[in-house]
Structure formats: structure tokens, C-alpha cells
């Protein structure tokens, strides 16, 4: 395993680079990196379920929302410290999501996508009308406690969180379990034929996805310091998550991260050039074209360049 | 003419290829004109009718609507063609407004043949006309196929597993095995070939035994 040492060195350089980055770039870029990190977490969460098993979830904002709202309500209304509220939020996301979405896993294809979309919309409606004194109603809640102050702390926290999640997901997906999940996406019947239970596998993928979504949602809320139904349970938010995972390269761990960074930086770079709604137009167009004409994602482009520049590592 | 071959010998694929439903290599000619790669719409327009193995009927349409859909390329002669179909299969006239999904197997075969006739074809491809049908219905279908050939002047090309059925009906036979032509010629002459008879015609009439190794999909015909 001579590539092991080679890889180890690369990883060490990358880690060191990430560590010293705050002293090299402006805090504006760090802020963008933070947002990209959170989007990457959400995209990984989507991909663990949908990118692998082929069960396209339009309800990821629903899961993120449960996590975000749980911790927001606990800290704001009941003065629960964040050390307790965040794990609680993750737990509630997993349990809540399981109760509501597990029956939906019986559905296939478009129907699963739609029921998750409907759940997201339902949640949007419910948060506003059910106990607005607790949820903050339409206005949401602001002035939530934040975990960090300043761009570089937020950067370290979000990068650490994102990398931990990505690494865990990556290792998980390399196990037989991960392979079985991908197999569901290709042929559910064959998985059943091989003596594995697709229901159990799907539930596992779903739980993993909910875990990541809940964790990401809770940290994101405490980063933003505020929460509002319109920003969470929203088709635009859903679109951003989907686009990040898909144009990065779905079915991988690095793909959604690439996609999230690409989209976030695209949006931020466009800001000074196109301050208004043109930005979303260009952003959407880029996402659509990439999705249509590069279905394997940015990852595939990078792979192609790598092969062109350095040759195929497997043959050379 | 009949094409005989075991399950998976490539008969249906051959027909699908002729219709342009699947991608093919080589050349397909109808009356000297190439129809290769021009798609099913062109094939139907050029005068090929197709009654497929699984019928591919429209389950929630009435019998009549199923037939009328067949007239997509031949709208000028609908009445005339409908009359022909009803003469051939009086039962379809009786069941005119019944949904295809509720029809019996034999009736479905009739709809399938009738629908193909509605496009006023010169060449009719019939895939497995007798599969899963009762002997009485088989005879009925065979008779109507003969009438199409003799009275309407159609060229009828049948794909059959049941070689006995084929040899009784067809003037010429083509035997297909794993996508390759094994033998071909006048029916009477082929019937004299001992090897073929033992492989395809079997002992009991209407019976059929699959040969080992014949089951591999044979799409590679050219």
C-alpha cells in the first residue's frame, strides 16, 4: 500500500491548509465557507437517502426543520442548554421523521417524492397555526443562542462538523451496508432476492439521513441565531439542497460537498456583479444546465481533468 | 410463410426489428424498398401490419376504439376495413362496446389481428397467434388467417413455436435458432427432413419440446 503514505501526506496538507485558512483569507470568504459547509451537510444528508437508494426525497427541509425547530424551541422557550438541546433535536428528528416518513417508504418513485413534498408544505402550514406562542408562528424566532462568535470560530466549527459527517458517511458507505443501499437504487427486487431486507436497509438509510439533517439543522440554527418557517420549509431551500447534491455528483460523499461549495460560491461571487434577482436566474440556469448535461456531476468533470493531466492512476 | 423457432429463438425480435421498434443492423427491405431504421410509423405506412405476441391492446378502450386506433394511418377506408374485420371476426362486432381488458384470450387475439388489419396492410406479421389459446379457438384463428391470405390477398408472416400449426398453415417455413436461420424452404420439403422433424415437430401434435441451449436471447440477427 504505497499510495497510503502518499494519501496520508495529502490529507495532512489539506488539514493544515484548512486550519490556517482563516489567517489567509478575509472573513467574507470564511462566512461563505460556513454557509457552504452547512449546505454540504444538508446535501450529504439528502444523498445518503436519495442519492443511494433512488428514493428521491423532496422533504429534506422537513427533516432539517424538525431539528432546527426542536433546538430553537428548547433553548428559547425552556432555557435548555445547547449541549442537551442539540442531541435532543437530533433524536426528535430521527423519531419524528421515522413516524411520519417510514410509512412513505412503501411508496415508490414519484409518489415518495410527492408525499415528502406535501409533508414539507404541511409542516410550513402547521408551524404557523399550531401554538404560535411556542413556534413563533410566521415570524419564527430570533435571538437564539449562538455557538460561536466571529467568522473564524464559525468556520472551524462548521468545517469540523462537515468533515466529521462526511468522513463517517464515507466510511459507512464503504461497508457492505453502503453497497447494499446503492444496490436498492439499482434493483430493489434483486436486493430482496439476495436475502437482504430492503425495508430495513431503507429505514437505515432514512435514519442516517435524518440524523445528519437533524444535526445539521440544529447547528445551522444556532449559527444563524434565528429561525423562520418561510426560510426553512421552502421550495427554494429544497432546490438548493437538491441542486448541490445532484450537480456535485450524487451517490458519492465528495460530490454533494463539491456541489454545495460550487453553488454557494457562485451565489456569493455573483452578488457584486448582479445584486438583484438576476442572480437567482443565472444561478438556477447554471444548476439546470449542469444537471441536464453533466448528470454525473462536477465530480466527473474533475475526474476527467485528473485523468487528462496525470493519466489514469489505475493504469499508470 | 411461417417462422418457426423455440422460445427465445429471436422470432419476436425479428418482427420488432422489421417494425423498427428495436434498433437493428443490416437491411430490411419491403418490396425492394429499404425500411431499415425508419421507425414503426413508416413501417405501418408502408403497409406492414403487426399483431404482437402480447397483443399490446389498449385495456380501457372499447373493442371498437381499439380497432379504430389501428386505423391511424388509413383513415380514408375505415368503414370498409371495419366491415372486413367484422366479417372475419363476427364476435368483435357483437362485443363492440366492451372494454378490451374484460375480453377473453381468443377475443384479444382477434382484436389484435383486427387492429392490424385496420391499417390496410399488404404484409401482416403475426407473432404467436395460438399461444395459450384453446384448440377450438386456434382452429378459428387459423381459418381466419387463411382467409386473409386467400380472400384478401395479404402476405401473412407467422412466428410460431408450434411447428405443427405452422406447417399446416404456411406454404413456406423458416426455422430460427438462437437468432440464426437453421433451415428454410417449402413446408412439405422441410417436413421430410428427419433431423428437423425430431427437433421441432415432436411426436404429439401441437406439442413442443424446447431444446437445451436454445433459450439464450438471440437478438443478433442481421
Amino acid at each position: 500500500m504505497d499510495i497510503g503514505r502518499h494519501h496520508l501526506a495529502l490529507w495532512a496538507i489539506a488539514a493544515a491548509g484548512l486550519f490556517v485558512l482563516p489567517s489567509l483569507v478575509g472573513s467574507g470568504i470564511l462566512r461563505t465557507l460556513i454557509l457552504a459547509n452547512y449546505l454540504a451537510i444538508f446535501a450529504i444528508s439528502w444523498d445518503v437517502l436519495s442519492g443511494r437508494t433512488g428514493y428521491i426525497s423532496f422533504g429534506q427541509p422537513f427533516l432539517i426543520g424538525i431539528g432546527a425547530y426542536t433546538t430553537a424551541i428548547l433553548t428559547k422557550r425552556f432555557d435548555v442548554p445547547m449541549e442537551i438541546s442539540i442531541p435532543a433535536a437530533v433524536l426528535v428528528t430521527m423519531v419524528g421523521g421515522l413516524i411520519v416518513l417510514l410509512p412513505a417508504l412503501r411508496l415508490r418513485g414519484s409518489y415518495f417524492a410527492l408525499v415528502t413534498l406535501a409533508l414539507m408544505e404541511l409542516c410550513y402550514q402547521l408551524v404557523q397555526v399550531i401554538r404560535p406562542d411556542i413556534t413563533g408562528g410566521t415570524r419564527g424566532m430570533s435571538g437564539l443562542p449562538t455557538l460561536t462568535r466571529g467568522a473564524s470560530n464559525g468556520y472551524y466549527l462548521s468545517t469540523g462538523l462537515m468533515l466529521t459527517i462526511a468522513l463517517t458517511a464515507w466510511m459507512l458507505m464503504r461497508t457492505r451496508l453502503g453497497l447494499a443501499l446503492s444496490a436498492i437504487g439499482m434493483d430493489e427486487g434483486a436486493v430482496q432476492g439476495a436475502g437482504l431486507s430492503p425495508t430495513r436497509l431503507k429505514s437505515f438509510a432514512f435514519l442516517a439521513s435524518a440524523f445528519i439533517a437533524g444535526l445539521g439543522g440544529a447547528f445551522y440554527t444556532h449559527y444563524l441565531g434565528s429561525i423562520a418557517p418561510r426560510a426553512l420549509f421552502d421550495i427554494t431551500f429544497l432546490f438548493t439542497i437538491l441542486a448541490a447534491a445532484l450537480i456535485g455528483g450524487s451517490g458519492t460523499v465528495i460530490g454533494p460537498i463539491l456541489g454545495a461549495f460550487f453553488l454557494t460560491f457562485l451565489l456569493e461571487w455573483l452578488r457584486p456583479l448582479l445584486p438583484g434577482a438576476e442572480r437567482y436566474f443565472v444561478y438556477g440556469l447554471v444548476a439546470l444546465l449542469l444537471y441536464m448535461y453533466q448528470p454525473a456531476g462536477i465530480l466527473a468533470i474533475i475526474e476527467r481533468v485528473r485523468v487528462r493531466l496525470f493519466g489514469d492512476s489505475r493504469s499508470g | 410463410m411461417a417462422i418457426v423457432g423455440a422460445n427465445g429463438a429471436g422470432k419476436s425480435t425479428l418482427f420488432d426489428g422489421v417494425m423498427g421498434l428495436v434498433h437493428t443492423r443490416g437491411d430490411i427491405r419491403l418490396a425492394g424498398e429499404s425500411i431499415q431504421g425508419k421507425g414503426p410509423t413508416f413501417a405501418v405506412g408502408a403497409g406492414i401490419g403487426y399483431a404482437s405476441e402480447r397483443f399490446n391492446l389498449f385495456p380501457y378502450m372499447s373493442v371498437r376504439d381499439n380497432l379504430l386506433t389501428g386505423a391511424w394511418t388509413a383513415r380514408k377506408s375505415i368503414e370498409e376495413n371495419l366491415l372486413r374485420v367484422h366479417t372475419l371476426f363476427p364476435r368483435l362486432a357483437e362485443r363492440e362496446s366492451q372494454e378490451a381488458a374484460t375480453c377473453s384470450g381468443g377475443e384479444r387475439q382477434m382484436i389484435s389481428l383486427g387492429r392490424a388489419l385496420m391499417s390496410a396492410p399488404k404484409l401482416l406479421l403475426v407473432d404467436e397467434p395460438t399461444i395459450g389459446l384453446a384448440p377450438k379457438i386456434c382452429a378459428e384463428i387459423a381459418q381466419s388467417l387463411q382467409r386473409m391470405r386467400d380472400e384478401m390477398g395479404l402476405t401473412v408472416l407467422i412466428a410460431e413455436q408450434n411447428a405443427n400449426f405452422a406447417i399446416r398453415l404456411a406454404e413456406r417455413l423458416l426455422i430460427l435458432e438462437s437468432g440464426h436461420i437453421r433451415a428454410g424452404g417449402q413446408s412439405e420439403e422441410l417436413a421430410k427432413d428427419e433431423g428437423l422433424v425430431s427437433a421441432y415437430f415432436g411426436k404429439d401434435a401441437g406439442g413442443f419440446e424446447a431444446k437445451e441451449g436454445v433459450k439464450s436471447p438471440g437478438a443478433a440477427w442481421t
Partner: protein
Amino acid sequence: MLLQILIQGFLLSGLYALIAVGFTLIFGIGRILNLAHGSYLMAGGYAFFWIGQIIGLPKIIGVALAVFLGAGMGIAIYRLIVRPLKGDRIAVEIATLILAVILQAAIVLIFGSSSKIPHPLVPGVVRIADTPIAWSILVATCASWIILLSLYAFIRLSHTGRAMQAVSMDPKGAAICGIDSNRIDIIVWSISGGLGALAGVFFAGYTQLSPSMWVTPLIISVAVVIVGGIGSIMGTLAVAHIIGFMEVIVTTLIAPELRGVFTMGLIIVALLFRPRGLFGREEI
């Protein structure tokens, strides 16, 4: 009170049926959910507004332009998204969702984000059983019914209609009848777009034009298709009435702010307990 609910329910349901029918057709023919369906309504509504209130031409030109624009969009979506993605349903859903977001941004660019109220098709108000009904809404409902019934007749009786059914029920069967499914697809996509845009003109007469106006009709369409089952026109009509009446009843008798909760709840319950819908049959 009961009579009011009845009248208002019928008026709203007719519109909902027209909104959803194009979506149903597309779902029927390729099992594809066109999540940009709401954008037809938006485009149609804005085109009508643009012709009538910015250019100042007669309203009927606005209606015609809206229908043409919608039909053109339908064909464009089919040619540029559905065909290149080779009918991959999930990919089409995602791509059309992204398209809807892009079109929303385009509307903001052209018309700004503030809401606009187009002139009613027919001004004035009529009172039936003490319920005031705007003529424009009455006309829209009647027109919706006429269009839906003629569409039904067209599909049942014409060659093209039968071909549409054929492609929907058995694509191979349709092909061996010589039906060019490509051409049928284009016809269906343009009908779907045209009807969507027309529904947009009517819908805008009810409510307003705004860049986010595509979401509500999309949800209505989704609800109708999900609850009604695979794209049947009669199923669409029936479910549009279930949803329309449910909304009016919730608004009048329960609590207006729970309107959306009930619609979403209906979709979820229907999907979980009857995934093929109440009228689930493979036909259009």
C-alpha cells in the same frame, strides 16, 4: 349558508379542474410529473396582463397570446428537458422543479416582485341566491367546464385523442398501430401548456399575479393527480371538486387559516392509504 357553500364550491372546483387537467394529461401519457406546470399559469397570467394592461390591446388577444405562449412552453419543456432526459421520471421532476425556480426569477426580472391584479375578463357582478358572484369568475367556471368536456370528447372520439389514450395505455401497442408517439407527446405537451396558461388567465382573475403564484396551482395539481389516481379526466373533475369543496367548507365553517393544512393532509392520507388514488386506472 349551505347554498353559498354549494355555489362557491362549484365555482372554485371548476377552476381547479382546469388547472390540474394539463398536469393530469402529462402524467397519464408518460407517468411524468411536470413540476413546472404552475409556471404555465404564471406565464399565461402575465401574458394576459402584459397585453391588456401594459400594451393596451383587447383582452381576447391577451387570452390568445397566453394560450400560444403556454403551448410553446409545453413544447419547449418537452423538447429541451423531457426528451434529452429520455423520459427519466425523477430527472424530469428535478429538472422541471429547477426550471420553475428559474422562471420565477425571470418574472421578477421582467415584472418586479410586486403583485398585480389583471382586469377581469368580464366586469360586473351577479347575485345568485344572495351570493355575489363576479361575472368573470362565472365565465371562467363555465369556460372551464366547456373546455374540460370538449377535451373529454376530443380524447374519446377523435383519432388524435384515441392515439393519446393508446400511447398512455400501451406505448408499444400504439407504435404498432403506426402512431408516432413523439408527435402525440408534442401534441399533449402543447395542450397541457395551453390549457395551463388559459387556467392562469382565469386563476389570475381570481387572485393576483405574483412571481410565486406557481406554487399554489402546482400543489392543487399534485393533489388532484395523487388523490385522483393516474391521470383520468373524470377522476380529475371528481377530485377537483373534492378539493374545491373541502377548501370552501374549511374556510367557511372551520378556520380559514387551516385551508392549506387540510389540502396537504388529504394528499398525505391519500398517498399513504391508497397510493394509486381513488380512481386509479391506467387511462386518460
